[in-house]
């Protein structure tokens, strides 16, 4: 076989490999969900992040408006701090609230943003003041057990630790 012919077939072979990788990344993988739109970062402190992961979606009204950029622990306030990458095309009032929600009963966790009514908008490096922690299933069950136990005992519900909001 001549040199040119070999080169042609090898080129085709390598091209096929590249196509396969692109197929895997775009069709099978989550490459297509990578957004290259310009973003701005805001921070939010939470008492409990639950099972939130980096790159989890940030949604508002069910639409993905950004991703969780990083997760850390604030040693001054003893709270978890999540940095969110929000896409620049979406703006939210500065008194919007962020809560950690779960898709489905046992699905992955994401951050939901509920817009507030303030005139000022969230900017780069601003902080979301109102946050709601993740619901931990074990706490929920123990709360339920405590409250039903205290009801049956006829004790005043104010003394029970579970009746705290």
């Amino acid at each position, binding site marked *: 076989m001549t040199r040119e012919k070999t080169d042609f077939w090898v080129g085709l072979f390598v091209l096929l*490999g590249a196509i396969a990788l692109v197929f895997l990344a775009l069709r099978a993988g989550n490459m297509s969900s990578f957004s290259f739109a310009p973003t701005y970062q805001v921070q939010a402190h939470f008492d409990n992040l639950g099972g939130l992961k980096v790159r989890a979606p940030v949604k508002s009204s069910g639409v993905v408006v950004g991703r969780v950029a990083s997760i850390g622990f604030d040693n001054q306030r003893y709270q978890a701090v999540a940095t969110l990458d929000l896409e620049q095309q979406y703006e939210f009032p500065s008194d919007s609230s962020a809560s950690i929600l779960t898709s489905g009963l046992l699905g992955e966790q994401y951050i939901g943003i509920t817009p507030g009514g303030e005139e000022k908008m969230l900017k780069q490096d601003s902080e979301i003041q109102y946050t709601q922690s993740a619901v931990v299933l074990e706490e929920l069950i123990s709360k339920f057990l405590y409250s039903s136990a205290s009801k049956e005992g006829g004790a005043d519900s104010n003394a029970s630790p579970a009746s705290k909001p």
Partner: protein
Amino acid sequence: MISPVQSIATLGGRVRRGITGLGAFMRLTGAILIRSGVALRRPGLVTQQIHFIGNYSLLIIAVSGLFVGFVLGLQGYYTLNRYGSEEALGLLVALSLTRELGPVVTALLFAGRAGTSLTAEIGLMKAGEQIAAMEVMAVDPIRRVLAPRFWGGVIAMPVLAAVFSMVGIIGGWIVGVLLIGIDPGAFWSQMQNGVDVFNDILNGVIKSVVFGIAVTLVALHAGWTAKPTPEGVSRATTRTVVTGSLLVLGLDFVLTALMFSN
């Protein structure tokens, strides 16, 4: 009757031979890597080897990938159906292919298809005294024969593994969506939600590169150290398949433990 001293000496001799063999393997590896400049200076030699190793293995890899995808689709469907989560079939097929089956099965087939031919070729060159003739003509056989084959194998292997995974996913799609009738939207979206580009696909590619290096080196070493007789070449070919396959499976365990342990 074997005396205790003798049996201890036998054991010692075995250990020594094992270590010597490993040392020879490493020296050959080093010699190939040092002389790899030829791959840049004469890329034609490497292209020829990619053609020989890669293009000729493409058919068997693609057909195997298709059937592995079919089987994954069927078996996955039977199991997932019990829990009423057939839509996760796409995720199951894609994750098992990109993480494990793609690189591993490709490497096993690669050892059988390309590794043996490399070993037999080099062993027969040795038996026909072509290697000795090269040395007489002051042509370095490691540079001229081994290094291009090494790089050809290392480049061809990830390409083949990627093709295997792609064809396998298409096979799973054919069985799951076309034959069984799972909703195609759920099939693909579950897959895209669960498969991470870096965690799963990139790690699979890294695995296939490592396997490519391992299998090609084993094949070259077996051919290079083969006894220059018909029997020696046939033994070397067998050794390539056995050692190469076992090495791939062992390395796969180590790599999986490193990559997916979190």
